C-alpha cells in the first residue's frame, strides 16, 4: 500500500511564504519576514525528510496527479508530480541547501534594503525549483524552468539601482531565452512524434524504438534539449551570463547560481536519459560541450581576481564535469557530482560571502590576505570546501569527480586527459584563492569597514555596515557554513562501493538494458558511447580485477593532479608572492587573453549583439515600426482628418447652400434616372 505523500505541498509551502512576504512583508518587521521565510522553506525541507522516511514503502516511480491541465484530443498534460530516486535526491538538495542558505541570508541581508523583497524572491525560487524537480511531465518542468529563470533575473538585478546589476540580469534572461528556445523545440518534437510529454508515457513509447530506425529524431531532440540545458547550466556557448550573475547578493550566487538552478540542466538531461540513450551523437555533443566548458572555464578561473568571479567560473567548470559525466552515459556520476557540488560550492559561496562581509564589501582578493586568524570559522569551513572541490580524498569532491573521470576514461582517454588537467587547474585556482584570501599579510586598507566609497565595488550592499575592521560573521551565518562544511567532508562517502550509483540504478537501469540490447547490431561508435551505462550496472566479472587496478591508477593520477595544483599554488602565492606577476608578464598576450575571458563577451557583442541591435534599430524600428506600422496609422488618421476637413465646409449653416445641395442632389438623381431609362445598357429600347 503506497501512502499518499501529498507531494504538492512541497512546492506550495515556499509559494505560500513568498505570497505572505510579498503582500505583507513591506509593512512587517525584519524578524517577522525572516520567520515566515524560514518557516516555510524549513517546512518544505521537513516534508522532504518525511518523504525520505516513507520512501522504502513506495512503489516507484510514485506519481501523484492533482488536476488535469491541458486536454486536447489524445494529448493531455496534468498537474502531476513524479517521485523517483533522481527527484528524491534533487528534492533533498534543493530543500536542504535551500533552507541552509535561507538561514544564512537572514544574517547576510540583515542590514540591506529590500529585505522582504529578497526573501519573497528566495521563497519563490524554491517554489519554481521544486516544481521543476517534481514535475511529472516536461511542460510542468518547463514552468519551473522558466520560473527559476525569472527569479534568477530578479535576484541578479536585486541591486537594480546599479547599472551593471540591471544589465547582468537582462543578460542572464536573454541568454537563457536562447536555450529555452531549443528546449521548446525539443518539446514540440516530442509532442509531434509521441503525442505526450509525460515521463512515464514517453519512456513507454520510446522503449521499443530502436536506434537504427530513430537515431535522427532522437539526436535532434537530444541536441535541442542540450541547447536548453546549456542555457540554464551555463555551458559553452551560452555560459556568458553566469559570471555576470555574480552581481546578485552572495546567498543568491550560492543558492541559484551554484547549488541548484544551474544544475537544472544536468537534471533535465538525466531525466531525459531515455532519449539520450538512443542518441549516441547527441551524447557525444553533451560530453564534448561539458569537457570543453570544464577546461575553458577553469583556465579563466585561474586569472580572475574577484573572489566571486573565481567561484563563478569554477561553477561553470564543475557543471562541465557533470555534463561530461552525462555525456559518457554515466548519468548517476553526473548527478553524484551535482550533489557534492551543491554542498561544497554552496559552502564556498557562503564562505566567500562571509569573507566579503568580514572585510566590509571588498571582493578583490588582492586586497585581502592574512584573514586566517581573524575569521577562523570562515577560514576552516572554506578550507573544507576548497579541499573538497580540489578532489583531495576523502572529501566529497574526490568521490564524485573521480567517478566521472573514471567513467569518461572508459569512453575516451581524451575526455579523461582534459578532465584530469582541469582537475589540476581547479585545484590550482581554488588554492590560489585560499592562499590569497587567508594567508600572507592583510593587503586591504586598515579599518576598511569605513570609507567604502573608494572601493571598486562601492555600491555593494555591505557599504552600510557601520563597523570597523575585519570581523567574524554572526552565528546565524556560521551555522549553515558549518553544516555545509560537514556535508562537504562526508557527503561523498555515500558513493563508496557504488552505493549512490546502485541507488539511482532503477532510474537509469531500465533503459540501460534496452540500449544494450539495441546496441548489439549497430555501428561500433554507438556501442562505445553508450555501453558504459550498461556495463556499469552489469560489470563483467572476468575484467573486474584488472579494472580495479586500472581504476586505482587513474584515481591516483587525478588525486596527484589535485595535489600538484595545491603545490603550485603554494609555491606561487605563499612562498614567492612576486612570482605570479613575473609569469603573467612573460606570458604576455596569452595571459591577457585569458584574463579578459578569451574576449568571448566582446566577440559575442561584435558578432551577435551589435548586428542584432543594428538590424533592430535600422530595419525593425525605423523601417517596419516607424515606416510601416506607425506610418499606416498616422496616414489613416491624417487622411480621415483631411477628408473631414473638406466635408466640414459643406455644413456652413447657410440655409441657401443647404438648399443648393438638395437641388444638386435632386438633379443628380434625375439625371441618373434619365440615364437608366434611356442610355443604360439594360434600358428598355
Amino acid at each position, binding site marked *: 500500500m503506497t501512502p499518499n505523500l501529498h507531494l504538492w505541498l512541497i512546492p506550495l509551502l515556499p509559494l505560500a511564504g513568498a505570497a505572505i512576504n510579498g503582500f505583507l512583508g513591506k509593512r512587517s518587521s525584519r524578524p517577522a519576514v525572516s520567520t515566515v521565510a524560514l518557516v516555510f522553506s524549513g517546512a518544505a525541507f521537513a516534508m522532504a525528510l518525511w518523504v525520505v522516511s516513507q520512501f522504502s514503502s513506495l512503489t516507484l516511480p510514485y506519481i501523484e496527479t492533482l488536476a488535469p491541465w491541458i486536454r486536447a484530443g489524445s494529448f493531455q498534460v496534468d498537474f502531476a508530480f513524479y517521485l523517483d530516486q533522481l527527484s528524491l535526491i534533487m528534492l533533498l538538495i534543493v530543500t536542504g541547501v535551500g533552507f541552509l542558505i535561507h538561514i544564512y541570508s537572514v544574517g547576510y541581508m540583515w542590514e540591506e534594503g529590500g529585505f522582504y523583497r529578497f526573501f519573497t524572491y528566495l521563497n519563490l525560487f524554491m517554489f519554481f525549483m521544486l516544481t521543476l524537480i517534481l514535475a511529472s511531465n516536461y511542460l510542468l518542468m518547463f514552468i519551473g524552468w522558466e520560473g527559476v529563470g525569472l527569479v534568477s533575473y530578479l535576484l541578479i538585478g536585486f541591486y537594480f539601482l546599479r547599472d551593471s546589476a540591471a544589465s547582468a540580469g537582462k543578460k542572464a534572461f536573454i541568454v537563457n531565452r536562447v536555450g529555452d528556445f531549443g528546449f521548446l523545440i525539443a518539446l514540440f518534437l516530442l509532442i509531434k512524434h509521441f503525442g505526450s510529454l509525460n515521463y512515464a508515457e514517453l519512456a513507454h513509447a520510446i522503449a521499443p524504438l530502436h536506434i537504427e530506425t530513430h537515431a535522427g529524431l532522437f539526436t535532434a531532440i537530444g541536441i535541442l534539449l542540450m541547447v536548453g540545458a546549456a542555457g540554464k547550466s551555463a555551458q559553452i556557448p551560452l555560459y556568458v551570463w553566469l559570471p555576470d550573475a555574480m552581481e546578485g547578493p552572495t546567498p543568491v550566487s550560492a543558492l541559484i547560481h551554484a547549488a541548484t538552478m544551474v544544475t537544472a540542466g544536468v537534471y533535465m538531461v538525466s531525466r531525459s536519459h531515455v532519449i539520450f540513450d538512443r542518441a549516441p551523437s547527441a551524447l557525444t555533443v553533451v560530453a564534448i560541450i561539458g569537457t570543453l566548458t570544464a577546461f575553458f572555464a577553469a583556465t579563466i578561473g585561474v586569472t580572475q581576481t574577484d573572489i566571486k568571479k573565481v567561484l563563478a567560473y569554477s561553477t561553470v567548470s564543475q557543471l562541465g564535469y557533470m555534463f561530461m559525466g552525462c555525456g559518457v552515459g554515466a548519468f548517476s556520476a553526473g548527478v553524484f557530482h551535482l550533489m557534492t557540488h551543491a554542498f561544497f560550492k554552496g559552502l564556498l559561496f557562503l564562505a566567500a560571502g562571509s569573507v566579503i562581509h568580514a572585510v566590509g564589501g571588498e571582493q578583490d582578493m588582492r586586497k585581502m590576505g592574512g584573514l586566517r586568524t581573524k575569521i577562523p570559522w570562515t577560514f576552516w569551513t572554506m578550507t573544507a570546501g576548497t579541499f573538497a572541490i580540489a578532489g583531495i580524498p576523502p572529501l566529497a569532491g574526490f568521490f564524485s569527480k573521480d567517478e566521472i573521470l573514471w567513467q569518461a576514461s572508459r569512453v575516451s582517454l581524451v575526455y579523461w586527459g582534459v578532465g584530469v588537467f582541469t582537475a589540476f587547474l581547479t585545484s590550482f585556482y581554488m588554492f590560489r584563492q585560499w592562499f590569497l584570501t587567508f594567508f600572507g599579510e592583510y593587503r586591504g586598507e586598515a579599518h576598511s569597514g569605513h570609507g567604502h566609497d573608494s572601493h571598486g565595488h562601492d555600491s555593494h550592499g555591505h557599504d552600510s555596515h557601520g563597523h570597523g575592521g575585519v570581523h567574524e560573521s554572526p552565528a546565524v551565518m556560521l551555522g549553515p557554513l558549518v553544516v555545509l562544511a560537514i556535508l562537504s567532508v562526508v557527503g561523498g562517502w555515500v558513493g563508496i562501493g557504488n552505493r549512490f550509483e546502485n541507488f539511482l540504478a532503477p532510474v537509469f537501469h531500465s533503459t540501460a538494458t534496452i540500449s544494450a540490447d539495441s546496441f548489439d547490431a549497430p555501428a561500433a561508435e554507438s556501442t562505445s558511447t553508450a555501453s558504459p551505462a550498461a556495463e556499469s550496472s552489469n560489470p563483467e566479472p572476468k575484467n573486474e580485477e584488472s579494472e580495479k587496478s586500472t581504476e586505482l591508477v587513474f584515481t591516483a593520477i587525478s588525486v596527484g593532479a589535485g595535489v600538484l595544483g595545491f603545490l603550485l599554488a603554494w609555491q606561487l602565492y605563499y612562498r614567492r608572492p612576486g612570482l605570479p606577476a613575473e609569469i603573467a608578464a612573460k606570458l604576455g598576450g596569452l595571459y591577457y587573453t585569458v584574463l579578459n575571458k578569451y574576449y568571448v563577451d566582446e566577440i559575442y557583442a561584435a558578432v551577435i549583439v551589435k548586428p542584432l541591435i543594428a538590424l533592430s534599430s535600422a530595419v525593425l524600428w525605423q523601417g517596419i515600426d516607424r515606416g510601416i506600422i506607425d506610418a499606416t496609422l498616422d496616414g489613416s488618421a491624417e487622411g480621415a482628418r483631411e477628408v473631414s476637413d473638406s466635408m466640414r465646409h459643406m*455644413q*456652413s449653416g*447657410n*440655409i*441657401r447652400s*443647404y438648399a*443648393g445641395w438638395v*437641388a444638386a442632389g435632386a438633379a443628380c438623381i434625375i439625371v441618373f434616372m434619365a440615364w437608366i431609362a434611356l442610355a443604360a445598357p439594360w434600358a428598355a429600347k
Partner: protein
Amino acid sequence: MVPLSYYLILSGILFACGVTGFLIKRNLITIFMSIELMLNGVNLSFVAFAAQWHALSGQIFVFFVMVVAAAEAAVGLAIIIAIFRTRETLNVDQVNLLKL
C-alpha cells in the same frame, strides 16, 4: 383642348421659378413663398395628368398636398415670427445656426 405638354411646360416653369427663388432669395418669407410655388407647380402636373387619363387619384393627391401645404404654412409662419422675434432679421445669411 389644351395639349398636355402645355400644362407640363407651365408646371416645369413654375417649379423652376420656385427652385430659383428658393436658392437665391435671402428673405425667409420669399423663400417660403418659393416653396409654395414649387408645390403648386407639382400640383398643376398632377391635375393635368388626372384630366388627361381621367383618373381621380391625381386630383385627390392634390388635395392632400394642399392640406399639407396649409399646415406647413401655419407652422412655417410661426417659425418665421419666432425667428424675427429673437434675431430681428429675416435674412437667412444671418440665420446660420444650422451647423455644428
